[in-house]
């Protein structure tokens, strides 16, 4: 069996392309090492460290965009696409840190592990989005997932947390197994795990992979990926998991890992499986539609905000699936834009939920928001912006997100999918509106009295996300141009 013949140590250039991950790993490890040595009241510094690490990571990523290319014998590919998603997940991390600090303090669970594990998850996501190899992709995915399992059950004495973590873990691992099995078969059929090489093999006319096998492998892969992005028919884990996890973690899970999983999905579709795109399309089509419908209609009946947002998150995954179905660069750019805008509006919404839920997350029913516009008008206004954005009202980021996706769908001649998708978003308006109704049109709940002003972190997070949501709603080009330029992947 041939051994890897010659080991070429990575060049400084390659190392630099990997710099954000390395930096974050160092910081995360440092946090882990410092954690047991620090006094219980000195945990705040870990949040600061995480924050700085993420900022440095973003700076390094931005610097790295000048020099796109592959690294570590083509295991990683750092193109605009990767940079986009890396920045996205790191920004998500920043916002989540802002939301989390006060939450953890209230729950008396402040510790360095939380931040370290979150950093690890983000590192995993960075790997996922820049992986050019199924192995690398798998490692990134698991790094992100395993850390997320831990985060989901972070408050280990909380029954809901336990349950959430358990379900997330079991179903996530189940999905991983499917994904891996698909990867194994792909590897067997094409003889490689490199995405570009798989594409070359599939394009090679002299090569006749067994189509039945290939179909089976693709289906397995799809099952795994669909699980990870909570697309129908593999979305059932999301509501329970999102409902049970601590609110900031839910915010994190619903955007970070999801965006990364979509990035991975996109990259696989657009590079390795590009030659098979016609085979993918019907599956994606049906899945996209089902995801939207299930998400939206199930959300209609929810009374728990976290669960409602979980279903809404499924529905939004459906919209992104529409973009995936188009299988075009425009669709890719649209999906990228959508994921970015979704990240901001959803984190914003969850930041408000975190704030309103208060200690022990006792107030997570939609009814608990009643009269928020009177007790905390600014927070209510911000939440309104987020919800309108989730609904897809113009001048918010969510609108352009949907707009670009459905435009891409029409470009790809998926007229019915676009029409049904748009009608779905009208359905979605109903449940988002209900929250607005509760906030603005109902008298304050009794418990609203004791609602203190939001902490600085939450305030900053809400404001930032609201500003970005509006900014992207008025000047979408800012992100879209970048997404459009990055949508062409290095194959």
């Amino acid at each position, binding site marked *: *069996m*041939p*051994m*890897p013949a010659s080991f070429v140590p990575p060049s400084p250039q390659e190392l630099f392309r990997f710099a954000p991950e390395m930096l974050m790993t160092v910081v995360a490890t440092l946090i882990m090492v410092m954690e047991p040595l620090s006094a219980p009241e000195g945990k705040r510094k870990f949040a600061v460290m995480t924050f700085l690490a993420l900022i440095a990571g973003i700076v390094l990523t931005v610097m790295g965009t000048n020099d796109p290319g592959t690294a570590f014998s083509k295991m990683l590919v750092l193109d605009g696409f990767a940079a986009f998603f890396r920045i996205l997940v790191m920004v998500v991390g920043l916002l989540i840190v802002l939301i989390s600090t006060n939450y953890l303090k209230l729950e008396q669970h402040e510790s360095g592990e939380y931040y370290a594990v979150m950093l690890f998850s983000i590192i995993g996501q960075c790997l996922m989005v820049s992986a050019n190899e*199924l*192995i690398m992709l*798998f*490692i990134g995915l*698991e790094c992100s997932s*395993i850390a997320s*399992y*831990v985060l989901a*059950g972070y408050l*280990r*004495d909380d*029954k*809901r947390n*336990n*349950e*959430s*973590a*358990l379900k997330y*873990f*079991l179903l996530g*691992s*189940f999905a*991983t*197994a*499917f994904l*891996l*099995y698909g*990867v*194994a*078969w792909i*590897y*067997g059929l094409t*003889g*490689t*795990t490199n995405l570009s090489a798989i594409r070359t093999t599939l394009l090679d006319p002299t090569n006749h992979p067994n189509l039945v096998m290939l179909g089976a492998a693709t289906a397995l892969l799809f099952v795994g990926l669909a699980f990870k992005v909570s697309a129908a028919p593999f979305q059932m884990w999301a*509501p*329970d998991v999102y*409902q*049970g996890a601590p609110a900031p973690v839910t915010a994190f899970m619903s955007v970070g890992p999801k965006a990364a999983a979509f990035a991975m999905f996109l990259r696989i579709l657009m590079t390795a499986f590009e030659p098979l795109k016609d085979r993918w399309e019907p599956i994606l089509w049906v899945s996209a539609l089902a995801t939207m419908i299930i998400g939206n209609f199930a959300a209609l*009946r*929810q009374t728990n905000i976290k*669960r409602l947002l979980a279903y809404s998150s499924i529905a939004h995954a459906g919209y992104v699936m529409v973009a995936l179905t188009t299988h075009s660069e425009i669709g890719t750019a649209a999906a990228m834009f959508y994921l970015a805008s979704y990240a901001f509006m959803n984190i914003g919404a969850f930041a408000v939920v975190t704030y309103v839920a208060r200690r022990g997350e006792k107030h997570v029913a939609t009814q608990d928001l009643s009269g928020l516009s009177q007790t905390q008008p600014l927070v209510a206004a911000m939440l309104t912006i987020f919800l309108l954005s989730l609904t897809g009202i113009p001048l918010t980021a969510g609108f352009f997100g949907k707009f670009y996706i459905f435009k891409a769908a029409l470009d790809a001649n998926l007229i019915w999918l676009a029409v049904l998708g748009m009608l779905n978003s009208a359905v979605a308006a109903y449940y988002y509106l209900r929250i607005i109704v509760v906030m603005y049109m109902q008298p304050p709940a009794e418990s609203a009295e004791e609602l203190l002003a939001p902490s600085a972190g939450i305030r900053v997070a809400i404001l930032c996300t609201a500003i970005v949501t509006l900014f992207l709603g008025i000047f979408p080009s800012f992100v879209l141009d970048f997404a459009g330029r990055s949508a062409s992947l290095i194959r």
Partner: protein
Amino acid sequence: MPELPIALPAHVPLSWYLILSVILFVVGAAGFLLRRNIITVFMCIELMLNAVNLTFIAFSHQLKQVDGHIFSFFVMVVAAAEAAVGLAIILTVFKNRSTLEVDEVSSMKL
């Protein structure tokens, strides 16, 4: 020199491994869906991962590459990490609820 009547084939055909892996995987998946004890469910996942490993190794051997070996290595590592996290989660669940039945760990419904 006396020859024994048994003769081993030069190598086991690839398809045997693959069929075995499919069986393992299906058993694992079925167990995951049908069994109700968390530990059993968890072990079913491990079984599925082992089916994956088997597939990788078999293909890797067939293709005369090391990629599959490396992959299965990582799968093992990840499975270990998953096992550690998973067992920790199961422990906390057990601590809080004193049950290991999947169906009983379900307080969040519509």
